């Protein structure tokens, strides 16, 4: 053997491999062969092509491994007679096919022609053209004999028979299943027949999603009771609790039964039972995934309420806000003060899920502030989406007849008339009213914001004793609106159970999710304890399961922000007043290794936000903070201006620090999604700046799109690759109101 190989150095490994397959090597022979070859191979290095030599060797050892461990089953070579048979079969099929095509194109629906399509489909159920042909043929026949129910039945029964034998050939054929649905919708067959057929197929392949889909179709068509179907999933799960398709169907059925409050299907009764059922599966084998996903669904059912809720608003209920004409300074420490050049202030509604239909008819405003009769509500979301969690309207407080030095009560009624609908189609039903007081001051100060804003000096610690935070932060109202007792009990029980489960990854993850759910619906006093435990769990998971590190890291960030915003005590530790900025409310969340933003619904009142020294990639989420005027994102992982896109919604933003990020290290990839380059995109409008310096706009288009829509007075960009003289000159053109760039006052 050895000699052979050496002598035949030029042979291709391919040829050699065929030899090997045809003469199975015994275990001992192959082992000794590889051993002796590997010993000898050193001598041949100079003689033969080294690469080839090692390849041959490796191939041999590899093949011998397969021989030993894959229990034979060598790929069988076709015997000549088999090959001839299969060639004949293929020829026959081609013959059938071309004959069929001729019939189809000539619209021939005789018995012979239809029988021919039967033969074709029984060999190849994938031939969808033939299924369509049969539909036409059936329609053709039915048009003549509609009055004779027996004949109609005979014709449709024949179709069902053909489908059945086609499915026996290939029960994953889309065309066959679809044809059966079509026949059934013609009003034929009985539930019994269909379920019997399904039972057979579902026993053969319990996870076949065609069969499950078809089952749901039959149930719906024949109005079979969902309770009966639920029992079927009982049986399927009972015989194989790993069958996730059965668990899934169970969740679909239960969702429907619970939603229409069928007899005996109240969440507070049924969901705890389901927890017990799934515990059985999970604790029998904790590595089996099926139960875990069902558990996740149950947790969803326990925590989430389908109907959308208003989570928070700015201004919040019973708060007082101070409004100024123009920009202002002054010290009204106990109030949120707000001044804007436009003489309007934002009214922000934050829902717990994306909704559409917020308008002046679904949200009514009752106040003496003039000119706010037909408020325009805008969704704060990317792109053209008409649904969003956050909606904003701008209330005017300086109208043609200014009446300063007065207090106005503003009453907002959300859901006054129906029309606010979640993206899943649920109506906002719990209409909600809140009232706040707006104090309009007559001090019209000269513009004073030309001074540079520093993130270092001039901050006062928040007075933790003061009560005003209660008025600023909207409390979590969701727990007041659900019957929370059974939910709390169910979650508490699950938590106790999972604490006992030994340290498995999925166990820890589920425990973290349960605790998160618990924290959301429990009293403020105990929230902090839960969040601490959650944070520990995610830290463990990051260490245990490095392949999902980034996922846990993000979840960790979310939990951390929930913790910080969970109570006034926690939050006030991060709050400051900025003296130089009219005592603006400043929130500092730096050095927390945050990788994503969360809990913004609790932070709508924040005017200055310091997120420096984190690991943020994007500002997604900040778009809800409509009062934000100063934002510090220095020392993060922002990679391009596109990642700052959400800031375009912040009409008050004047100061932005993105120094020491990674902007410009790489040109933004535009080929990722739809268009090859935004500048070849025909939607791109040519404006003044664009036509003045087309090459710079082309180069910095991502910065251009963001900066153009902002109204910045101060920008810090140093410490990014993009920063430099050329970019500075570009910025000056795009942001003409800029006064400070990288700490230097601009000569205007």
């Amino acid at each position, binding site marked *: 053997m050895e000699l052979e190989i050496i002598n035949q150095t030029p042979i291709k490994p391919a040829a050699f491999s065929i030899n090997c397959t045809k003469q199975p090597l015994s275990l001992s022979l192959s082992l000794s062969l590889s051993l002796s070859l590997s010993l000898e191979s050193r001598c041949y290095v100079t003689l033969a092509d080294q690469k080839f030599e090692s390849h041959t060797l490796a191939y041999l050892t590899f093949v011998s491994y397969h021989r030993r*461990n894959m229990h034979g089953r060598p790929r069988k070579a076709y015997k000549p007679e088999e090959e001839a048979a299969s060639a004949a079969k293929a020829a026959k099929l081609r013959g059938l096919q071309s004959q069929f095509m001729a019939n189809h194109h000539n619209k021939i629906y005789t018995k012979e022609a239809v029988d021919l399509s039967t033969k074709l489909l029984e060999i190849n159920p994938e031939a*969808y053209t033939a299924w369509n042909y049969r539909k036409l043929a059936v329609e053709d026949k039915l048009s003549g004999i509609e009055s004779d129910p027996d004949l109609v039945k005979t014709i449709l029964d024949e179709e069902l028979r053909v489908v059945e034998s086609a499915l026996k050939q290939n029960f994953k054929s889309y065309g066959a299943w679809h044809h059966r649905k079509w026949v059934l919708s013609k009003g034929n067959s009985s539930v019994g027949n269909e379920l019997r057929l399904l039972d057979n197929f579902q026993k053969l392949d319990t996870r076949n999603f065609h069969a499950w889909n078809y089952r749901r179709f039959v149930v719906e068509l024949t109005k079979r009771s969902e309770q009966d179907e639920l029992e079927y999933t009982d049986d399927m799960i009972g015989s194989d609790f790993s069958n996730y398709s059965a668990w899934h169907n169970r969740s679909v059925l239960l969702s429907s039964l619970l939603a229409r409050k069928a007899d005996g299907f109240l969440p507070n009764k049924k969901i705890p039972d389901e927890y017990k059922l799934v515990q059985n599966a999970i604790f029998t084998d904790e590595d*089996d995934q099926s139960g875990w996903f069902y558990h996740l669904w149950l947790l969803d059912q326990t925590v989430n309420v389908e109907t959308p809720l208003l989570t928070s608003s700015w201004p919040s209920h019973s708060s007082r806000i101070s409004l100024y004409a123009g920009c202002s300074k002054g010290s009204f420490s106990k109030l949120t003060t707000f001044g804007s050049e436009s003489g309007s202030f934002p009214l922000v509604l934050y829902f717990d899920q994306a909704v559409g239909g917020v308008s002046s008819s679904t949200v009514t405003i009752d106040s003496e502030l003039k000119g706010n009769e037909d408020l325009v509500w805008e969704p704060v979301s990317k792109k053209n989406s008409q649904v969003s969690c956050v909606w904003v309207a701008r209330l005017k407080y300086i109208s043609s007849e200014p009446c300063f030095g007065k207090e106005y009560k503003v009453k907002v009624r959300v859901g006054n008339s129906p029309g606010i609908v979640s993206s899943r189609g649920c109506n906002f039903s719990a209409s909600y009213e809140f009232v706040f007081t707006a104090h309009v001051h007559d001090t019209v100060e000269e513009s004073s914001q030309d001074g540079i804003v520093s993130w270092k000096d001039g901050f006062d610690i928040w007075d933790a004793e003061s009560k005003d935070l209660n008025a600023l932060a909207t409390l979590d109202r969701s727990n007041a609106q659900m019957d929370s007792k059974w939910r709390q009990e169910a979650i508490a029980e699950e938590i106790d159970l999972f604490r006992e489960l030994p340290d498995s990854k999925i166990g820890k993850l589920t425990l973290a999710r349960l605790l998160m759910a618990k924290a959301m619906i429990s009293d403020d006093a105990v929230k902090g304890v839960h969040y601490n435990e959650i944070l520990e769990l995610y830290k463990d998971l990051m260490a245990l399961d490095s392949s999902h590190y980034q996922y846990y890291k993000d979840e960790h960030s979310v939990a951390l922000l929930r913790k910080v915003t969970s109570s006034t005590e926690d939050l006030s530790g991060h709050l400051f007043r900025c003296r130089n900025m009219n005592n603006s409310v400043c929130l500092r969340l730096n050095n927390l290794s945050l990788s994503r933003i969360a809990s913004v619904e609790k932070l709508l009142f924040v005017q200055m936000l310091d997120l420096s020294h984190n690991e943020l990639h994007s500002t997604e989420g900040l778009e809800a903070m409509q009062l934000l005027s100063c934002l510090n994102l220095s020392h993060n992982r922002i*990679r391009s201006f596109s990642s700052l896109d*959400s800031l375009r919604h912040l009409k008050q933003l004047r100061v932005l620090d993105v120094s020491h990020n990674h902007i410009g290290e*790489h040109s933004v990839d535009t080929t990722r999604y739809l268009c090859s380059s935004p500048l070849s995109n025909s939607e791109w409008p040519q404006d003044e700046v664009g036509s003045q310096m087309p090459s710079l706009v082309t180069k910095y288009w991502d910065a251009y799109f963001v900066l153009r829509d902002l109204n910045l007075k101060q920008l810090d960009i140093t410490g990014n690759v993009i920063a430099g003289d050329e970019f500075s000159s570009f910025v000056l053109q795009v942001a003409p109101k800029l006064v400070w760039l990288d700490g230097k006052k601009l000569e205007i």
Partner: protein
Amino acid sequence: MEELPSITVSQREQFLVENDVFGMYSYFDTSDIATQKFIVEIHRDKQLDYLMNGLRQLGPSFSSLDANRPWVCYWIIHSIALLGESVDDDLENNAIDFLGRCQGSDGGYGGGPGQLPHLATSYAAVNTLVTLGGEKAFSSINREQMACFLRRMKDTNGGFRMHNMGEIDVRACYTAISIASILNIVDDELTRGLGDYILSCQTYEGGIGGEPGSEAHGGYTYCGLATMILINEVDRLNLDSLMNWIVHRQGVEMGFQGRTNKLVDGCYTFWQAAPCVLLQRFFSSQDLAPHGSSHMSQGTDEDHEEHAHDEDDLEDSDEDDSDEDSDEDSGNGHQIHHTSTYIDRRIQPIFDSLGLQRYVLLCSQVADGGFRDKLRKPRDFYHTCYCLSGLSVAQHAWSKDEDTPPLTRDILGGYANHLEPVHLLHNVVMDRYNEAIEFFHRAA
């Protein structure tokens, strides 16, 4: 329910697969270096032989695929392109001619000459022609008729039908929008209600099922996510739960499964890894809206004028300018590679990329060419196409964008195994996509 059986059929099967896979891994770990190198290498010659032979003569056993012949073309030709190769002129002309005969007179491609036009085979045909590239291939597609065909397949519920009187599902939606996007014929009529339909197929698990009520499935999840990105409505999906579902489909074998508690399968290397990378890129750098809301709200007349203006500019000098600029940019980019900041252009993938590559190369690759579902299974062109596509995705998963080449250590087996990067939304090789997109934008 009190007495559950101690081991179910699924568990037994899972156990057997794990046994095979871990047996293979431990064999690999204890092998000498030469054997290890051999096993992790993509045997390009063997792979190409297998693919080219397949293209030359579709053997008798392929007759069952007779309603899917454009698919076979796509699986093979795309695989060849991933390996950085092209087919010769004869084969290319044959393929173009053959697909031309599959094209219906009123738009779309059927599974073979004379067969009804079908969305899936239309997708396969268009992707094949895009991969072949060149004027002849591109212009063989009847764009206007294709647009008519897509409109005929559009259902009032927002989704698409696979073919006349055919089934409606997420595959149909994806293939329709992918075609429309590449051929640059997307319009409001095609996208109307489509997002709502896809949304109704996302399950509580987070993944996307084939039709409303179905359980989440890897292939449909890819189709649904890609569709939502293509129509610019991706933020309507519950991306957190989608992410959660998908990262947990990578099992202990390091390959992906298609559904909860199913066995690992090599083809999901693409169907599941591509959504992972799409999500990861979406989160790490939000894409600028190609149709930003502030631009769209302007008067339509004005827009039309600007269109004309834009195109004029492109005809003249701007195009050249921007090309040069971007060349310069990438030139600079390469210099930066050698500095420490290069590390920041990299991202930790949300799945185990090297583990995945290991599964594909050790368990799915067949030494004589071709790839397969798992050990003990036969090879086929479908699995070859999606294992190679998935390998390419995994190799490029560390880059935050498609322009950044992977490091040697990102690629199991080193640069010898490097595959061409693919466009994640269409699964065609990036360069071929760029050439096609340019052609079809000029055609508009």
